[in-house]
C-alpha cells in the first residue's frame, strides 16, 4: 500500500473515531504539479488527500490559526521534518500544546516519498538530530559562497538590487509558520520603526527585521522564499542566520518542544571577539 493510501486510511480512522477533529494535508492544486493545503473534518473526504513529491509547503503555520486549538481537541497535520521542527518551536514558544498535534510525518528524496514513524513531536527527535548532524547546506551553495566572499560594498549592492524588487506584500511573513505575531512590528506606527513604503530603504529595513526575528527560529522550510512573488532569495539570508546560531550557540532550531529560544536565553560564557 502506498504511503498516500496508508495515510488516507489513518486519517479516516482518526476522523471517524473522533480522535482528531481535523486533518490538515495536501490536495490537488491548480496545475498538475501544484498542491494546495486541504482541511478536512469529515472521514468521507479523505480520498481528496494527496501525498507525493510535490507536497512541499510547510503546513505547520495553520496550526496557530486563531481558535483552532482552543477547544483542546486534536488536529492532525502532514509534516516534513522542517514542519515537525516548526511545531517544536511553536510549542517551545507556548503557541500551542504539542499534545494536541497528531503528525503524519513524511520526507521526500527525489521523487520518492517516505513515511516518518511517529505520532507526536518527541518521537521524531532522531530524524531531527540526523538533519542537524548532516549540517544542511544552502540550497544554492555557489551563490551563497559568492556572497560571502564579496566585500561589504558588493554585498550591499547585491542586496540593494534584490530588495529593490520587494513590493512589501508581506507574503513571506504570511507564509511563515514562525511569523505568528498578531501585530508585526512593521504594522506598528507608534513609533514607526520601519518605513512602510516599498522604497529601497523601507525594503532594506523590512528584510533585516524579518531575518532578525527569525534568527534561531527559522527551520529553512522555504515557505517564504516560495511565496515571494519577486523571487528575492530569502533562503540565503535565512541560511546564513541558521548557520550563525548553530556555529555560535550550537543551536539548531526546533530540536525539541522544550528547547530554549536562542535569543531569549544566554550562557555566561557565550564567546565573541568583537566587543571592545
Amino acid at each position: 500500500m502506498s504511503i498516500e493510501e496508508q495515510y488516507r486510511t489513518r486519517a479516516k480512522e482518526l476522523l471517524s473515531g473522533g480522535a482528531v477533529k481535523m486533518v490538515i494535508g495536501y490536495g490537488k492544486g491548480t496545475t498538475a504539479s501544484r498542491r494546495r493545503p486541504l482541511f478536512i473534518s469529515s472521514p468521507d473526504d479523505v480520498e481528496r488527500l494527496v501525498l507525493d513529491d510535490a507536497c512541499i509547503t510547510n503546513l505547520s503555520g495553520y496550526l496557530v490559526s486563531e481558535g483552532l486549538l482552543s477547544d483542546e481537541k486534536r488536529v492532525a497535520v502532514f509534516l516534513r521534518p522542517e514542519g515537525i521542527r516548526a511545531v517544536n518551536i511553536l510549542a517551545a514558544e507556548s503557541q500551542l500544546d504539542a499534545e494536541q498535534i497528531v503528525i503524519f510525518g513524511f520526507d521526500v528524496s527525489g521523487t520518492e516519498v517516505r513515511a516518518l514513524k511517529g505520532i507526536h513531536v518527541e518521537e521524531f527527535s532522531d530524524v531531527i538530530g540526523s538533519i542537524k548532524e548532516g549540517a544542511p547546506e544552502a540550497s544554492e551553495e555557489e551563490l551563497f559562497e559568492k556572497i560571502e566572499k564579496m566585500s561589504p560594498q558588493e554585498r550591499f549592492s547585491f542586496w540593494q538590487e534584490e530588495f529593490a524588487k520587494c513590493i512589501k506584500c508581506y507574503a513571506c511573513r504570511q507564509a511563515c509558520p514562525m511569523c505568528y505575531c498578531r501585530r508585526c512590528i512593521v504594522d506598528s506606527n507608534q513609533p514607526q520603526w520601519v518605513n512602510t513604503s516599498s522604497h529601497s530603504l523601507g525594503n532594506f529595513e523590512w528584510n533585516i527585521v524579518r531575518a532578525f526575528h527569525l534568527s534561531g527560529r527559522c527551520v529553512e522550510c522555504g515557505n517564504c522564499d516560495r511565496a515571494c512573488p519577486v523571487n528575492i532569495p530569502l533562503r540565503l539570508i535565512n541560511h546564513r542566520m541558521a548557520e550563525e546560531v548553530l556555529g555560535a550557540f550550537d543551536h539548531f532550531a526546533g530540536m525539541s518542544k522544550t528547547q530554549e529560544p536562542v535569543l531569549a536565553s544566554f550562557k555566561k560564557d557565550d564567546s565573541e571577539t568583537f566587543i571592545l
Partner: protein
Amino acid sequence: MSEPFEPKIIAFVCTYCTYAGADLAGTSRLKYAPNVRIIRLPCTGRISPMFILKALQKGADGVLISGCHPGDCHFTHGNYHARRRWMVFRALLDFIGIPPERVKYSWISAAEGVKFAEFINTVTEDIRKLGPFEQYSQLIEQTQASASL
C-alpha cells in the same frame, strides 16, 4: 570648497555603567570627539536592534553600543541577553553588507572614564577614515525623491 567630513555617530549606552563612565570622563575633564550623540537607556538589554536601524535611517555614519561588563549588569543579566542579540544581529548586518566597522560594541564601566573617551576617539577616527556611509545615505535620499506620476 566643501566642508571636511564630520562623522555623525549615535551611541546607545546603559545608564548604570557606560553613561556613568561618560559622566566620569566629563567630570575628569577628559577631551573626546564631539561627534557622538549619546542616548541613555536603562540597560543594554533595552537596546533593541531597531535602534541601530533607526539611527542609520536617520543618517548616522556610525553607531556605538556600550554597557556594563558581563557580570556587572544592574539587572543581573540584561547584558548577557544583549550580547547574544548583538552577535546574531552583527552577523546579519554583515551578510546584508552593512560593514561591521560602522556598528561598534563595547563594555565600559562607571569607573572607565578614560576607556570611554578613548573609545569615542578611536571610533570617531575610524569612521572618519571610512567616510560617510554613502550606500545608506543613497537609500535615504531615494525616499526623499518627489513622487513622479
